[in-house]
């Protein structure tokens, strides 16, 4: 095998192969579209799952690819949610797509500023600093209840019809398709980035920071760049959340949301894009069904699954699937 693949052409081919679409990649999208027709009564849950996927995907960019650990990612989700919510409720800016853009831009700005300061640190220090920054933002939102509505939140978010044409029905069909389209566009961007030379440099930083510094990589700039992009994506997820729920409370910014998205991503598998899809979907479906069965103990169940994942499947559930697929291929 090695002898035939040594020419530069074959080497470039090897690098480009990952960038090409594989048939299996159609699967999540087919499932999402299939669910639209199969479960018309569950579109509200479906929309929330799509938003969860987008949020987890934004985390994967920084955690899975660049190795940035954070316990404050909800700060960007919340920034986007409040931006979209306040625009619609206070300023009457109900056009959904432009409001999403503003949500993303506000979160990007927050990511740029906080990332520029915080990304000089790593590991546990960074974890604590992101947590502290997110708590500060939460308390700021609490203190300025005149703007944020405090614990009551922002209500009265009225979103104008999409493209001025598509009305929102009671069952959330339009929101589902809207969220799916936004997720797809964001996913294309994320996929493009992780397979670019820049994405490779991020993996280099994750794999060996010391070496990247020794070979002159502008590490800080690279990290701030991806942090800002990730924040923007989380902000768009937050914006969708505000629009689809028609209200925002401080929980959009809270620690629990930061922790939950981390659990979703680790469950699904980090650094593989589709881990966000699997993790967010399973987590939220479990939450929905188990919480009905046992509202007190369902989190224990999720915690147990998480512990098992971390102990026995470092690549998450998707990593397990990949292993199984590899073994199956060897068998045949």
């Amino acid at each position, binding site marked *: 095998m*090695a*002898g035939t*693949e*040594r*020419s*530069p052409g074959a*080497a*470039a*081919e*090897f*690098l*480009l192969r990952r*960038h090409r679409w594989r048939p299996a990649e159609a699967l999540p999208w087919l499932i999402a579209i299939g669910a639209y027709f199969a479960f018309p009564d569950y579109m509200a849950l479906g929309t929330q799952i799509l938003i969860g996927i987008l949020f987890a995907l934004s985390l994967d960019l920084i955690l899975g690819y660049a190795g940035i650990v954070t316990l404050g990612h909800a700060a960007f989700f919340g920034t986007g949610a409040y931006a979209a919510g306040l625009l619609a409720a206070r300023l009457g800016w109900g056009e959904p797509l432009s409001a999403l853009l503003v949500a993303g831009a506000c979160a990007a700005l927050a990511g740029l500023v906080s990332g520029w300061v915080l990304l000089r640190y790593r590991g546990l220090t960074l974890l604590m600093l992101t947590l502290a920054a997110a708590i500060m933002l939460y308390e700021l939102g609490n203190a300025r209840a005149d703007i944020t509505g405090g614990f009551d939140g922002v209500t009265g978010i009225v979103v104008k019809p999409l493209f001025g044409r598509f009305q929102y029905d009671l069952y959330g069909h339009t929101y589902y398709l809207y969220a799916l389209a936004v997720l797809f566009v964001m996913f294309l961007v994320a996929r*493009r*980035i992780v*397979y*670019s*030379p*820049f*994405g*490779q*440099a991020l*993996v*280099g930083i994750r*794999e*060996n920071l*010391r*070496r*990247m*510094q*020794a*070979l*002159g*990589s*502008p*590490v800080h700039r*690279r990290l701030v*760049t991806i942090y800002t992009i990730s924040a923007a994506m989380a902000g768009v997820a937050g914006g969708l959340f505000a629009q689809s729920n028609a209200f925002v409370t401080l929980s959009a910014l809270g620690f629990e949301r930061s922790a939950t998205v981390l659990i979703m991503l680790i469950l699904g598998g980090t650094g593989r894009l589709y881990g966000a899809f699997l993790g967010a979907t399973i987590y939220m479906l479990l939450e929905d069904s188990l919480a009905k069965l046992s509202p007190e103990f369902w989190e224990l169940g999720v915690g147990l699954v998480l512990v098992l994942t971390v102990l026995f499947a470092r690549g998450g559930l998707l990593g397990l699937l990949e292993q199984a697929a590899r073994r199956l291929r060897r068998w045949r």
Partner: protein
Amino acid sequence: MAMNELALETRGLSKNFGALQVARAIDFRLERGARRALIGPNGAGKTTFVNLITGVLRPSAGAVLLRGEDVTHRSQIERARRGIARTFQINQLFRGLSVLENVCLAVGERTGACNNLWRAAGARPEVVDESIGVLEALRLQDDALRPVGELPYGRQRLVELAIALAQRPKVLLLDEPAAGVPSAESHIILEVFERLPQDIAVLIIEHDMDVVFRFARSITVLVAGAILTEGAPRDIAADERVRALYLGEHAHG
């Protein structure tokens, strides 16, 4: 003429950790095309000296000049971009990546290809071609697509060197390149050294005196953070003080 050009110079370079002086006013000059070995007993401050040159550590006093330019206050990253490359005593590779990608990262960062977040990696043939060229020079091309962690240790040592060479350095610092390589394989590394581009200034830190005396055209002896002596290998081998340090370990020198 070229030999008179200084690739690297340190002036009064000192580093203290509290009361501990690990570098004492080191005046060091490395000419273009130099093949120098830095030797000294354990704890002499050899790795500290490398870290001061590369910018990992900031000196307490003194200056570092790269081709005449004062880079004392430049970061490690800026110095690397100006032409200082190093290998590490313990491999610092991108273990999850293929051999090719390890080298592509060095080429991509040097050429600025890694600033691009929209094109596909591998879409720029010049980056891939150059990386393959580096691998061919080290006879690693057959392993290009293998994950670097799967390679035997001796070959991983060569990848360590390939990354540094892909930086196209003016000054190359090799921190114990033969460490951990079975002596039966160290000749492979020596052969590679003989084929290094002539104009690179190379400084090698090595304990294996076979490697030192086969590679180096001049030797600097560092003891307790200060330069004890410098000279041609023959003179160093004959130096009583150096002999005392090494207790005749390299009597054949």
